[in-house]
């Protein structure tokens, strides 16, 4: 990303406008044309600077249950375990972290029961039993906007 690109992004509000021509609204903020704005975002998308523009849902309000799971996976079982976990569309994030509990993923499901089934299947298929279900008790902050 060039410093010029950064300057454009910096001028933009983090909200995607709720208007018939949202890119025209954003273009106004950046001081360029609507067409230039769309071209700019297309390039950002290609360069993976931009991930997506979309509604951010409050999963809880839709009755969806979510959790963070940590697993202690022996080195030689990591590849297989990750493959098992990633096969579920219910898992959106999965990371290797520097700890004995080394595999960390987030899971969302339509019910508590469905979630427990998925977790049980992951344990069975991977052969890894040591798993912590780190259920959310309270959200103090959840944000994805950054100061540039």
């Amino acid at each position, binding site marked *: *990303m060039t410093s010029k690109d950064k300057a454009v*992004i910096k001028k*933009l509000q*983090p*909200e*995607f*406008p*709720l208007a*018939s*021509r*949202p*890119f*025209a609204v954003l273009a106004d903020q950046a001081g360029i044309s*609507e067409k230039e704005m*769309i071209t700019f975002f*297309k390039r950002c998308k290609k*360069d*993976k*600077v*931009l*991930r*997506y*523009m*979309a*509604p*951010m*849902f*409050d*999963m809880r*309000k*839709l009755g*969806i249950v979510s959790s*963070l799971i*940590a697993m202690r996976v022996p080195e030689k079982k990591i590849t297989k375990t*990750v493959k098992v*976990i990633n096969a579920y569309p219910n898992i*959106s*994030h*999965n*990371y*290797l*972290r*520097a*700890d004995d*509990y080394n595999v*960390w993923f987030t899971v*969302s499901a339509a019910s508590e029961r469905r979630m427990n089934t998925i977790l049980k299947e992951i344990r069975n298929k991977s052969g890894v039993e040591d798993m912590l*279900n*780190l*259920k*959310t*008790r*309270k*959200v*103090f*902050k*959840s*944000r*994805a906007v*950054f100061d540039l």
Partner: protein
Amino acid sequence: MNKVSRKILFALSEPFALVPEPYALVAKKIGISEMKLIDQIAQYQEEGIIRRLGIVYGHFKMGFSANALVVWKVAESDLENTGKIFAGFSAVTHCYARQSYPQWPYNLYTMVHAKSDKEAQATIRQMASKAGLQEYKKLSTLKEFKKIKSDLREILS
């Protein structure tokens, strides 16, 4: 949830297209007018079902390459207060209280984003001192195995 709103929710689960009239495109897919869709989105926002319409950037590409999950052991009576203190840090994007276990006593979770390891360390030290905490763990991200946008259709079906 009725059939129409389910259809709307599923259509909105996909990112907006980079075209001049993205809402009109989504509305067409659902089979409703653009105005009806925009009204419906506004209503979801009011109800808190949609937290916001976001423009989501990739942090690595934005220069936030040193990300760490930091987990803290906090006394139950201090949890609320400490959660609020950490939420006040701009480098902290997520701050959650979570269930702990005897073998894993950490009950407060923060995602810290920084441009360098040094910067992350400095922020974490500042957090620890402000909250008066000694027991915490920095769980650096070694590898990203998966990172996708949650698909409501897949989760709810």
